[in-house]
């Protein structure tokens, strides 16, 4: 066994017992250079923070965070250089964190810009609330607005402070891995992209650097081993767990902004029972669908909005032209006053097509394709505004006149995956093959879905991932013929595309219920009115809304086959290819209002149930990983007790374990001490005396009559005595994080050669 030559100043002299400093009582010195560890921590935390880049859009936040971390660690290091007190540096670091965050984010109400006042704390509270909102409403990658950077600075600054305490004050640098893994795990928990492996490797390297800088003259092997195991564990655990697929992840609750914001929005609304979302009143007294966002891209797995940066010229004071609307189409001006209640959405509910919106708080922008209104700074919550919009009233003739013309710039709205299941396009052909114009085809599709063969059901009897809008889900939906609004909307849009009709899916609210308030007519929209529907494009008219979901919403005149002039669609061919008979006749084709609670149809409750244990498993896994040292130590003891009881273990084994306990409790024992000296350092006691007597007889006498079986009790009571004499914090660390796993204290069976090596090492 290689014997490490301990440094002279730290080693204990047998006849000069006061030479070895008690590690917990004396400030770091000698080979443990605190400022080197501080620098290593700055690098490690900085690199770990880089891992968040997958979540955020603009990377300038990183410099702010690193500045804060540098200030915190620097303040602690400076205090450490000036004062030998153990507690002062972390306190200084905490004050530095508070000061720098105040200076950066709320300097105005603070004294001299850095000393926080009560107003500053209020400002912090507001920032926290805004960050919460912002995180909820933004998709990944999110724009790091001020509130998000604030939370990042506070969180990562606090983690840096924790690292400083753990690595320098407590001298347990290996534990730094836990806070680092917390930072690294954030992307893995919240986004579909697992942490950037490159960043992970860099962070692991930085962590090893911390270990090397922070563990002089200890046995780094085991430390590095446990650290590597923790890192690998943290990396592999999320992969090994179910639900890594984005579909479920998107529907997971919590502050995650899924890739598809619509689904997380629906999830937001679904979490509570029915409650009012908004109230609106119109000049005409008519109710309208209110649109939130347009889903234009069909990837095959889901419908998703086109993520593009907002054009800051597109302010809500002046909307652009309504896409595709020609002057021939009859229209009326409409004015709608909307008061939004508790709706955490970055899209504003507005009737289509809006022309001017006034009264909004913060800046909102429109996007030109779907005229949906979006903000990166605010949410719809609490907004009160007036929308000037148009009521478009196309005639069936105009729609018929559109024929089958599709202009080239609309071809993106015909995009379908190559591997679209044939059952979908076959069904579309079967329904609308005989129809002439796109309009007739659209009506045929709508009536196909609204016919009695389809059933509205929120708990459609399908397995697995029936929550999404992907084409596999749609194929299943067409077979089962039961589903929610999102299935109807996306199925109709996909089938329309397969028939060369430009189509997209819209998420928004049903018109809601009429309510009289103060003698004025208004409409009340609740969480149960969340809805989705398809929009199809007709040349000369533009985007026209359809309603394929049975029993939901209302049809425009142009889409209602019972209205005179609207062409009667060809009755759907019940034997459409791939369409199987309905499993159970739809006795109640339209879902009752109660049953329609979750008509946004992502089925997220199930996803939540799957997502929560996934998150829980991460937490449990991390806890288990951090418990490994304690478990290893407990196993060592348990095994030794068993061996002592069976007579397999000697007094030397018992003594070695007692020394380990002493190391755990940070008592100054070392392999260069004789057992008697070590016992003196440990403080004595009758049980320890008996153990000492036994180990001296076992180790140095010619014969011994010690029965090691009698030592088990002494071992236990010696351990109890030692633990009782220790500080509570030391005792807790000894239990959870026994340093004896890291420090080599075993009495080596040295040879003269190794002692010689030890001597030469010092030369």
């Amino acid at each position, binding site marked *: 066994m290689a014997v490490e030559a301990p440094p002279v100043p730290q080693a204990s002299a047998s006849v000069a017992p006061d030479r070895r400093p008690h590690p917990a009582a004396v400030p770091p010195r000698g080979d443990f250079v605190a400022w080197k560890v501080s620098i290593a921590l700055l690098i490690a935390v900085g690199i770990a923070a880089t891992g968040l880049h997958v979540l955020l859009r603009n990377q300038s936040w990183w410099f702010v965070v690193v500045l804060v971390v540098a200030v915190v660690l620097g303040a602690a290091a400076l205090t450490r250089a000036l004062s030998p007190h153990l507690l002062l540096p972390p306190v200084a670091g905490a004050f530095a964190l508070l000061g720098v965050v105040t200076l950066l984010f709320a300097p105005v109400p603070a004294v001299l810009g850095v000393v926080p006042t009560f107003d500053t704390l209020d400002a912090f509270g507001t920032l926290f609330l805004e960050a919460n909102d912002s995180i909820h409403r933004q998709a990944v990658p999110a724009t790091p607005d001020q509130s998000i950077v604030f939370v990042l600075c506070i969180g990562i600054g606090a983690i840096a402070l924790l690292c400083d305490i753990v690595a320098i004050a407590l001298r347990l640098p290996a534990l730094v891995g836990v806070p680092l893994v917390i930072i690294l795990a954030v992307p893995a928990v919240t986004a579909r992209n697992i942490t950037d492996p490159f960043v992970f490797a860099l962070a692991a390297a930085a962590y090893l650097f911390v270990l090397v800088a922070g563990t002089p003259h200890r046995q780094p092997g085991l430390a590095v081993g446990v650290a590597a195991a923790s890192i690998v564990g943290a990396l592999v655990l999320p992969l090994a767990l179910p639900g890594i697929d984005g579909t479920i992840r998107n529907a997971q609750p919590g502050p995650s902004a899924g890739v598809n914001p619509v689904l997380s929005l629906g999830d937001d609304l679904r979490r509570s029972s029915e409650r009012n979302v908004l109230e609106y009143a119109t000049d005409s007294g008519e109710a309208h669908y209110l649109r939130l966002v347009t889903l234009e891209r069909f990837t095959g797995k889901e419908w998703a909005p086109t993520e593009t940066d907002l054009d800051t010229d597109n302010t809500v004071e002046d909307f652009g032209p309504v896409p595709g609307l020609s002057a021939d189409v009859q229209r009326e001006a409409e004015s709608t006053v909307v008061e939004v209640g508790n709706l955490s959405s970055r899209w504003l509910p507005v009737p289509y097509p809006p022309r001017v919106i006034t009264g909004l708080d913060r800046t909102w922008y429109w996007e030109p394709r779907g005229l949906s209104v979006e903000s990166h700074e605010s949410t719809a919550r609490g907004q009160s505004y007036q929308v000037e919009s148009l009521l478009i009233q196309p005639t069936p003739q105009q729609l018929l006149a559109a024929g089958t013309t599709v202009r080239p710039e609309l071809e993106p709205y015909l995009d379908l995956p190559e591997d679209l299941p044939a059952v979908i396009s076959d069904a579309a052909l079967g329904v609308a093959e005989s129809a002439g114009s796109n309009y007739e085809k659209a009506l045929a599709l709508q009536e196909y879905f609204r016919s009695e063969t389809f059933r509205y059901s929120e708990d459609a009897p399908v397995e697995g991932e029936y929550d999404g809008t992907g084409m596999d889900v749609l194929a299943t939906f067409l077979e089962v013929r039961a589903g929610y609004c999102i299935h109807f909307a996306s199925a109709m849009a996909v089938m329309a595309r397969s028939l060369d009709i430009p189509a997209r899916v819209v998420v928004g609210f049903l018109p809601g219920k009429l309510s009289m308030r103060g003698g004025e007519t208004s409409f009340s929209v609740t969480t149960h009115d969340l809805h989705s529907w398809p929009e199809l494009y007709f040349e000369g008219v533009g985007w026209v809304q359809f309603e394929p979901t049975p029993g939901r919403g209302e049809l425009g005149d142009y889409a209602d086959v019972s209205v005179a002039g609207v062409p009667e669609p060809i009755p759907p061919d019940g034997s459409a290819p791939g369409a199987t008979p309905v499993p159970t006749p739809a006795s109640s084709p339209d879902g009752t209002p109660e049953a329609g609670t979750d008509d946004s149809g992502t089925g997220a409750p199930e996803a939540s149930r799957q997502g929560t244990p996934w998150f829980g498993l991460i937490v449990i896994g991390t806890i288990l990983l951090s418990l490994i040292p304690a478990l290893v130590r407990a196993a060592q003891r348990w095994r030794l007790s068993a061996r002592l009881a069976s007579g397999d273990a000697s007094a030397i084994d018992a003594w070695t374990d007692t020394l380990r306990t002493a190391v755990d409790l940070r008592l100054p024992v070392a392999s260069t001490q004789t057992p008697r000296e070590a016992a003196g350092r440990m403080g004595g006691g009758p049980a320890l005396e008996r153990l000492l007597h036994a180990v001296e007889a076992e180790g140095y006498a010619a*014969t011994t009559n010690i029965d090691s079986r009698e030592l088990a009790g002494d071992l236990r009571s010696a351990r109890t005595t030692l633990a009782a004499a220790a500080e509570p914090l030391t005792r807790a660390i000894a239990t959870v994080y026994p340093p004896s796993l890291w420090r080599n204290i075993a009495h080596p069976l040295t040879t003269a050669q190794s002692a010689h090596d030890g001597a030469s090492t010092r030369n």
Partner: protein
Amino acid sequence: MSGIPREVDEDLAEPETKRTIMLSALEFRGLGGQIIDSIERVIDGKRHAVELALTVLLAEGHLLIEDVPGVGKTMLARALARSVNCSVSRIQFTPDLLPSDITGVSVYNQAVRDFEFKPGPIFANLVIGDEINRASPKTQSALLESMEEGQVTVDGVTYPLAAPFAVMATQNPVEMEGTYPLPEAQRDRFMVRISMGYPDAAAELAMLRQRESSSPLDRLQPVVTTQQLLAMIRTVRAVFVSRSVERYAVAITQATRHDHDLRLGASPRATLQLVRAAKARAALDGREFVLPDDIDALAVSVLAHRLIPSSRLSGGADGVHSGSLADVVLRILAATPVPLGSAGSV
């Protein structure tokens, strides 16, 4: 120069080599305690030096007491000698002392018409060599040879020395005037060098009271017989030394040979004497086996006077920096891992 003690003849005529009596650990400790108590009646507050002196006697080594005049060096040696009922001779070393003044001379006896050996003061159980560094090197080496050999050869005839035989030499620090410092080869013959040091105020005050009337040395009575002393020595020889402890001792002396602060490390004889002294200490402690603690406790006393500091430590001077050499030994002890293994294991 003192005359030949009366007891010498009796002791020489009655060799104890046939006896194989062994003492139990308890008996041994009891006797050792009595000797120490007896000496402490004369030497106040120097228990460590007293124990070391007894340890050396029991380990069949020789003792070098180094200190300034008047701190009780000779008193210690004499008190020890008196307490164990041994023959004692005392040699005052002076620059004109001749080797034959120590070993004895052959003189022509007119009556028997032959040369007759007149034994010198070396023929005693305990030989006190006062101020050994005042004699010329030639005389010093005559003493030291007999210390090592255990016998004296005069005019071609070899005379065995008494058993037990121990030399307790005192010397003044080399800085004092008119001294010949012992060469390192001769310092190596001494098992232990101790330094008495000044007594503390209380001890000095007590000493004043005691010496008012008469010398306390006169009141000392032997507490063990020569036979008992020989049995103690035999018991010490039988003390068990485990392989671990042997390895520990070797590791320490090896380390002195590679230390950058030392020009000359400890000799293999030093290792041998370290272990022997440790055996005596273990026996005095009532143990039948040696602990690493015994080695630790004796290492400075056994090793320090054999080491020669490097120029780095001593600044080039050839003086004995006992303080700094002791520090070097302590540093080596602090850096040497203590082996722990079952007695039989290698």
